[in-house]
């Protein structure tokens, strides 16, 4: 392994980078800090640190109802998006059919399209088809937007797959179906988990699409949104802090999984003659 000698010193750039980091983290730090502030949000510096707001949060039943709703929708979205995303990735990787290029663009479009467009188009479809708005429509909306995430991640994973392994499996007598379950899927394990975590997080946080497809039952972001419209309460700081902590937890898990696989890959590279 060659050492890169281009690690130069530039204090000005380092300072600038540090300020960008500060800018990125400032709101989050403030948020967490003020969730412990007795006097709520505002003023400086925060005095009278307390856990009051967390206590209030604990007994707030509508928040917890919405958390449950979000969890249901997110779990469902993970299953739906991973399944269809895997099929789409396989199709893009292995099949050829007329209109494939258009198909590829369409599958990836919701990633970059503003959520309002996806949300509204599905709303109009739901109304047209006579389907009432509910968690089901929210679930379908999330699935539609998030298949793109799954497809991108899984397609990258398929590209890294050694085609010879699937051939070896067929050569040894396994049918294509057996090959898929015994060889292809296990090799995609990491991509599936990474995609799954990402889809779960994005679904839990989704607002724009959800906004137009929501029925009577709220998801967590929409519940918070509703309260924000009515006025700020520091309870929201507490919720936000909790969300932040959970998100960081998920990243830590994901990071560990990635470094485990990278470690295995690195060992492979060293071993090869």
């Amino acid at each position, binding site marked *: 392994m060659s050492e890169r000698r281009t690690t130069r010193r530039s204090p000005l750039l380092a300072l600038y980078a540090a300020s960008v980091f500060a800018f990125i983290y400032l709101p989050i730090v403030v948020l967490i800090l003020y969730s412990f502030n007795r006097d709520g949000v505002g003023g400086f510096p925060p005095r009278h640190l307390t856990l009051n707001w967390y206590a209030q949060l604990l007994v707030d039943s509508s928040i917890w109802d919405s958390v449950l709703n979000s969890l249901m929708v997110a779990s469902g979205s993970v299953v739906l998006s991973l399944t269809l995303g895997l099929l789409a990735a396989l199709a893009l990787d292995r099949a050829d059919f007329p209109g494939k290029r258009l198909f590829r663009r369409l599958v990836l479009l919701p990633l970059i399209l503003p959520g309002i467009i996806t949300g509204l188009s599905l709303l109009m479809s739901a109304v047209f088809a006579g389907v009432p708005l509910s968690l089901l429509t929210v679930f379908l909306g999330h699935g539609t937007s998030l298949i793109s995430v799954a497809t991108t991640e899984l397609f990258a994973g398929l590209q890294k797959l*050694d085609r010879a392994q699937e051939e*070896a*499996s067929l*050569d*040894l007598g*396994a*049918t294509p179906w057996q090959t898929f379950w015994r060889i292809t899927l296990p090799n995609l394990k990491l991509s599936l988990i990474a995609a799954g975590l990402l889809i779960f997080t994005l679904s839990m946080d989704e607002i724009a699409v959800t906004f137009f497809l929501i029925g009577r039952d709220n998801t967590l972001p929409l519940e918070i949104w509703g309260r924000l419209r009515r006025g700020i309460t520091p309870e929201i700081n507490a919720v936000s802090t909790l969300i932040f902590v959970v998100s960081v937890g998920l990243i830590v898990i994901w990071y560990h999984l990635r470094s485990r696989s990278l470690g295995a890959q690195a060992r492979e590279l060293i071993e090869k003659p």
Partner: protein
Amino acid sequence: MSASPANPPEQTTAEATALLEVRSVGKRFGSTQVLKNISLDIASGEFLTLLGESGSGKTTLLRLIAGFEQPSAGEIWMGGERLDILPPYKRPVNTVFQNYALFPHLSARDNVAYGLRVKGTPASETSSRVEEALSLVKMQGFAASRPSQLSGGQQQRIALARALVNRPQLLLLDEPLSALDANLRKQMQSELKALQREIGITFLFVTHDQEEAMALSDRIALLRDGALEQIAWPREIYARPATAYTAQFIGQTNLLRGEIRGSIATCGALRWPLEEADGPVIFSLRPEAIRLSADGKRQASEVKFRAVIRQQLYGGSSETLEVDCGNGQMLRVRIPACGPLAGEREFVFSISDAIRVKE
């Protein structure tokens, strides 16, 4: 070097049954014709090598037999049944892949057991056959290791065991030794040859290394641009190459181009009597067939000529000389080591060593 059988296999193939028959097989990718009308038979128990440069079609032919591609024309038969219409998992053929293609998420033992398990072989039989295969390739101690923990040579043995444990009728090997360093490669060549002798399975081996092909094979099939150039026993293909290409690809040679007129063959400064029809001609003359002339006398069956030594490359047990016969005609001569030489000397070769080849 291992001893080759006293009888050239061409005699044994006449008696042995043809295990695999490739009948007029052609393969096209888009507008490129990669294989052109190939027909050959592989005898049961033989070690046949497909030899050729990259792009010669040798790997494509292997993949057609394995089942990963379909022939555009022709048929492949094995044991009296049509092979090319079967999917790869139904063919009694197994492959050792160039980069081994071991399953990284399975241990060595599970890799070897894979083929047996997917076919539902009972566990007791599976474990005994797996142990047998592992000891055949001398990897019993590594059964629990993951492929990433094994060296290249060790992975190669596991790949071999994984294929052999299924007792295929034909084993395909796609340049399995090309990823190994020189010493390990020589050692594996020897082991592979011994293994094939021991278990008697038919091997179809693909390589671009002609030395390897000559060392290992019962027969060599030389492919060039998708067509079969020559198929013969190694000694035969070396001593009597059919074409200029074969003569140059296998070993080193001097190509003498000239013509025959009035029963005299003339190639540049070299002339000798030859009873053949008039016309252009090419001869292959191996460097080791040319010697330094010891005395002035010339036999009727020999050709003598004078040439200036332009370069001398010392090779330990031999010298390779580049000599100028005049008018820019250069020849390569190989003689036993004899110390530095210089100037103009006289050389000699037997007429029978000048093999006539086609273009």
